[in-house]
């Protein structure tokens, strides 16, 4: 009839019009078997619902009746319906506001409801900060436990043990209270045998820690392994993973993170700290009804908690908020921006007051120098960016290949053994080289350090000319032998870290990525920085140096190169842009270095994007098949909605429920025979006109509840979704009204809608499914999984890898 009005765009699919003709040819019948039959008060089986109200109040009564517990909740591994959650929250808010005018108690209730968000943020910040302090202090102590023990109190780590005593200028580590294991066991610390004993104890402690970690993870909370950020990204986009942010996961993740970091494995704690903070957020949400019952509001809180997590990891509150905005969150309403910042600040302040590093700094590798840099140095910085991009792409490819192997072959059957083997290899290779023996954060801290006259480490062993020192400002000097030794040791450390991190990330212990990538970048940066410095010193008469680097001036700062290298590598792996630069400049405390950092970050992102499109977290999401609809990619194919919808041509027709002609038994048969998560409700099978959409879970709960609690409901009772019960002879059993679980406003598109628009709708509104109509009649359904499979198919990936619902 009206087909010309519905044609849009291409006429490619004209052949499928024959199928649609039979539907369009059905009689357009506006008869009484329709939406609102005249009022029939005889079938008053549910007078308690409709009691008294025949005009407008029936909607109010339906709304105010308490829904059954379980209705409106979601099953595990399912996607939430954002639209429904948001509208439920708005309804709740409206109700509270309207009630607040009635009594003082209701007014107080509405005020406290408004404040509950802020109180929740405060609590999340406090808890996240405290846990971060606990993790930092314990990790520090346990890392040093591999090398020795403090006699003045076993709970002190090396630095705190020697705090009180006078150490010498050259040997700042030695003090009488700290005993290495060989000193404790043998009585002396020198000699080959003592070295072997130290080596042996180091490997033993490392194995013990990692064994404990993997056993605790396997035994108590298997969800606590890995980084956590890919899964949190998926959860924040609307997926439900029950138990992923639970109490046990929190406890086990905190404990095993310390163990994993202390065992010397090449992993960091920033990613798991985000998971820990989100667990805190989820647990504290249970205190407030507003957040406990509503999945969409809860995800706002989780975004803020993720910001607090990054903030305590790096001491960068603004960077944390931007990280949450850019990397982790899917919908980030502006209202949560202020609240996230508040949570991040409270967390950072709590951590500062616990003072884990003894100098009021939040991070070990805070940079305090402010030496100027020259424009010509942008060339090496861009080189570092290219290195970062190349390394990032290489790491992502190899790590994904290794993780895929772990998933599909027998390697995955021995997680405990795998952890032990990797730890053994790491410890055996790490001990001989002093730069891998120290913890990675300390390594980064030392590499970021600018050498002054007060430093006596090997890396700062330049040839000094004492007569020309003026204050603390040392000129560029020739490298002494110590520097050359440090260089090749660092090169070996670089190679080792590049390869071992591939096998470490993704193991069954909590593992983060930030610190190892920063370490790789910092080592590369420092090597390049020292090379440039020596080049400028020995060839100060070359044209490129003579302009700005006269002999006796301090022009090149290798510490800055290390920082830029760290930023480049981190950007290459995670593809962070703004948040990376902001985190780095909050680490340095100033805006001087923003241009080098940005140059390196941009270069590394471009180089890495040219090789592979996805960052590490997106790659892991795709590897695991999570139903994550990428928000940043454009969909640029010309397919239509009817190419993607189900049922396809040769499939059986769409399973629908009619609005008032099916019995309880029919519905139960449908539920048992099919596994769909929801069913459209139509007026009748002939007309296929859409009434609404009902979810499987809600149907099951309501029917079971009705069978138990309501009298008269048997298998032949009619289920109706209309406002008033259909007319039936009085001898039939009482009917079951399920209008309250029906979604009366499902989203529909026509079959000719281009898929670009459909994908956009799914992304922007957070839909779970979308019905497809043709000429006003229901034709099929598109679910989020169908959309993901379609995108995967068009990108020539395996569409069967989309596992979840």
């Amino acid at each position, binding site marked *: 009839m009206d087909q010309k009005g519905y044609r849009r765009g291409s006429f490619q699919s004209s052949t499928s019009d024959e199928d649609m003709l039979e539907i369009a040819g059905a009689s357009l019948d506006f008869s009484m078997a329709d939406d609102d039959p005249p009022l029939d008060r005889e079938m008053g089986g549910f007078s308690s619902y409709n009691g008294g109200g025949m005009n407008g109040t029936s909607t109010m009564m339906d709304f105010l009746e308490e829904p059954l517990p379980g209705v409106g909740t979601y099953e595990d591994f399912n996607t939430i319906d954002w639209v429904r959650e948001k509208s439920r929250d708005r309804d709740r808010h409206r109700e509270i506001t309207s009630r607040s005018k009635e009594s003082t108690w209701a007014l107080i209730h509405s005020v406290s409801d408004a404040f509950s968000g802020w109180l929740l943020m405060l609590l999340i910040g406090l808890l996240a900060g405290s846990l971060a302090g606990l993790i930092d202090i314990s990790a520090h102590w346990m890392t040093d436990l591999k090398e020795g023990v403090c006699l003045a109190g076993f*709970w002190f780590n090396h630095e705190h043990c020697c705090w*009180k005593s006078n150490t*010498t*200028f050259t040997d700042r580590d030695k003090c009488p209270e700290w005993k290495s294991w060989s000193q404790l066991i043998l009585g002396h610390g020198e000699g080959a045998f003592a070295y072997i004993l130290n080596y042996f104890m180091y490997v033993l402690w490392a194995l013990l820690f990692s064994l404990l970690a993997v056993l605790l993870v396997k035994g*108590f909370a*298997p969800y606590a392994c890995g980084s956590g950020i890919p899964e949190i990204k998926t959860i924040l986009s609307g997926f439900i993973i029950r138990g992923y942010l639970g109490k046990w996961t929190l406890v086990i993740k905190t404990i095993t993170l310390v163990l994993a970091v202390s065992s010397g494995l090449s992993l960091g704690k920033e990613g798991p700290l985000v998971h820990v903070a989100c667990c805190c957020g989820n647990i504290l949400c249970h205190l407030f009804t507003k957040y406990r019952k509503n999945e969409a509001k809860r995800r706002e809180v989780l975004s803020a908690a993720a910001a607090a997590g990054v903030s305590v990891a790096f001491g960068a509150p603004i960077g944390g908020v931007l990280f949450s905005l850019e990397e982790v969150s899917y919908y980030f309403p502006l209202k949560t921006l202020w609240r996230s910042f508040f949570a991040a600040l409270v967390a950072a302040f709590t951590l500062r007051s616990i003072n884990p590093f003894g100098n009021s700094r939040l991070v070990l590798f805070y940079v305090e120098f402010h030496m100027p840099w020259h424009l010509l140095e942008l060339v090496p910085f861009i080189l570092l960016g290219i290195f970062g991009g190349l390394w990032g792409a290489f790491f992502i490819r190899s790590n994904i290949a290794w993780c895929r192997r*772990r998933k599909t072959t027998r390697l*995955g059957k021995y997680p405990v053994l795998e952890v032990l083997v990797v730890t053994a290899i790491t410890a055996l290779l790490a001990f001989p080289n002093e730069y891998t023996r120290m913890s990675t954060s300390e390594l980064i801290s030392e590499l970021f350090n600018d050498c002054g006259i007060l430093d006596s480490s090997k890396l700062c062993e330049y040839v000094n000319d004492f007569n020309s020192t003026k204050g603390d400002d040392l000129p560029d000097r020739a490298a002494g032998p110590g520097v050359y030794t440090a260089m090749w040791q660092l090169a070996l450390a670089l190679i080792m870290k590049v390869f071992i991190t591939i096998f470490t990330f993704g193991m069954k212990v909590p593992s983060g990525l930030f610190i190892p990538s920063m370490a790789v970048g910092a080592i590369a940066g420092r090597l390049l920085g020292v090379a440039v410095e020596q080049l400028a010193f020995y060839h100060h008469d070359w044209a490129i140096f003579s302009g700005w680097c006269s002999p006796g001036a301090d022009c090149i700062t290798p510490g800055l190169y290390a920082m830029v290298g760290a930023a480049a590598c981190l950007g290459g792996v995670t593809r962070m842009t703004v948040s990376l630069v902001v985190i780095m400049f909050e680490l340095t405390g100033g805006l001087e270095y923003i241009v080098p950092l940005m140059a390196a970050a941009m270069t590394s992102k471009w180089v890495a994007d040219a090789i592979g499109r996805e960052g590490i977290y997106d790659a892991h999401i795709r590897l695991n098949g999570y139903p994550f609809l990428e928000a940043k990619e454009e969909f640029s194919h010309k397919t239509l909605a009817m190419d993607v919808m189900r049922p396809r041509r040769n499939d059986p027709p769409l399973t629908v429920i009619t609005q008032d002609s099916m019995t309880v038994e029919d519905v139960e048969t449908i539920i048992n025979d099919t596994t769909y998560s929801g069913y459209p409700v139509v007026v009748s099978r002939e007309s296929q006109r859409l009434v609404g959409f009902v979810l499987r879970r809600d149907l*099951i709960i309501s029917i079971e509840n009705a069978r138990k609690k309501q009298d008269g409901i048997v298998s032949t009772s009619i289920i109706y979704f209309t406002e008033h019960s259909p007319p039936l002879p009085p001898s039939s059993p009482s009917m079951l009204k399920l209008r309250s679980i029906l979604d009366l406003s499902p989203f529909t598109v026509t079959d000719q809608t281009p898929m670009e628009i459909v994908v956009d709708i799914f992304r922007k509104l957070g839909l779970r499914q979308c019905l497809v109509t043709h000429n006003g009649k229901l034709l099929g359904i598109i679910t989020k999984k169908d959309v993901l499979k379609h995108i995967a198919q068009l990108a020539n990936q395996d569409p069967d890898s989309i596992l979840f619902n």
Partner: protein
Amino acid sequence: FCEFLFPQVSTMFAQCTQKGASLVLLMVLLCCILPPPAQASKSSEDIRCKCICPPYRNISGHIYNKNVSQKDCNCLHVVEPMPVPGNDVEAYCLLCECKYEERSTTTIKVIIIIYLSVVGALLLYMAFLVLVDPLIRKPDAYTQPLHNEEENEDARSLAAVPTPSGARANTVLERVEGAQQRWKRQVQEQRKTVFDRHKMLS
């Protein structure tokens, strides 16, 4: 070790997984961690002024520590005995760098002890679950139905989980047992998802 992977019903040593008790535990943890730094214990052990002086002429480098307050933390107060004669003191002190540092030994001690006790408790609980639990549970083996898979997941997950014997969980003990049983089932499900089917987190 195999029994550990398929735990049976528990006894009274269960850690209470109920909501209120664990929240109380969290609050207690917070209160234990926050007051020590809030007090800012200024015992003499915990503050110091650290001055690092580099090699100067023929004097080697040296590090000086002393407990002084922040206003006295400078080269003149801390560097004793002064290695250079009076007219050189100013030049020497210009090279030295003095920093005031504070720490809280109580915080460190408390945190390490809390951490070790939590690890110890978890290890004990794990040992209990592996060794003691199966011995106690031997007579009541297989009270749970053997695994149906995803087909019955809907019905099972939605209906309130019935206690195996059908009795109502009235006493605190039985409620705790029920909670622990639910928790064990959850962990088992998670373990299957992550370790066996590799559906997540690889």
